[in-house]
């Protein structure tokens, strides 16, 4: 597991109060992990803080699964 993947999964667990075992890369924040709209906003804010970046709203909307979050960070951070 890459460093970025680990950090993303850790944030997802913390923010959504999910068990590590339940968080799969394919997990959808809303459908599988029970996030509401405010949770997803907080999650994006936490990712921004962790990776010291700003995720624009239209990009943030497309991040709905763990894998999409990992992909976004991989694609946008050096």
């Amino acid at each position, binding site marked *: 597991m890459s460093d970025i993947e680990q950090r993303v999964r850790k944030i997802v667990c913390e923010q959504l109060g999910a068990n590590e075992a339940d968080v799969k890369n394919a997990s959808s924040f809303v459908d599988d992990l029970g996030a509401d709209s*405010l949770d997803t906003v*907080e999650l994006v*804010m936490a990712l921004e803080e962790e990776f010291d970046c700003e995720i624009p709203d239209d990009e943030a909307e497309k991040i709905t699964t763990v894998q999409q979050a990992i992909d976004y960070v991989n694609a946008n951070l050096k």
Partner: protein
Amino acid sequence: MSNIQLLNGQIALVTGASRGIGAAIAAELGQQGATVIGTATSASGAESIQSNFKQAGIKGVGMALDVNDITQVEFVLKEIAAQFGDISILVNNAGITRDTLLMRMSDEDWDAVISTNLKSVFRMSQAVLRPMMKARTGRIISISSVVGHMGNAGQTNYAAAKAGMSGFTKSLASEVGSRNITVNCVAPGFIETDMTAELPETIKTKMLERVPLGRLGNVKEIASTVAFLASPNAAYISGETIHVNGGMYMA
């Protein structure tokens, strides 16, 4: 005066705290144990807040802040975070009037009042929300007005801004309730301040005829309501407007 320190450990930001209702709110929160940051638009206003705090033995500072200026808002919040920590109580009190009949109201009269009285509530609330959400606790209290609920000739701009606060408050209360943050308004009636001192006696007499308690309110009576909403005693009140008007308007 209450000696119970219900707000120990809290960090409160009160806008427009140099005089009138805002000064009384800042003093009351401080007396109940909160660390208070009071803001005023001018540096001299900020200094007078600070010396008031010192005299009253209140922890906190005065800072200059124009709530219309987003860069100043960001700067002040950073300063507060660095000096004191995260804000747990926000009191949106700063406000202005530009009274005139609608027929004569300019765009500037409208925009200035909506921006200072309503947009500032959006801006300040948004700015303090992130740390409150993280902390899973917070209080946002906006000082509205009876005029926002009754209407008042000559104050279409002011009444619109104050009524807007109420809708904002209910909506935000719905958004952040799950994070244990409460959002409320306090709506004063006729209170003894510089704003009402300027009114002619005849108008004052007429106003008082509409107040069952037969007198103007005292700023302390607004401050104690705000302190109540800020306290753990009001933990289950959210999205509400508390009217403090001597019975002049009964919601």
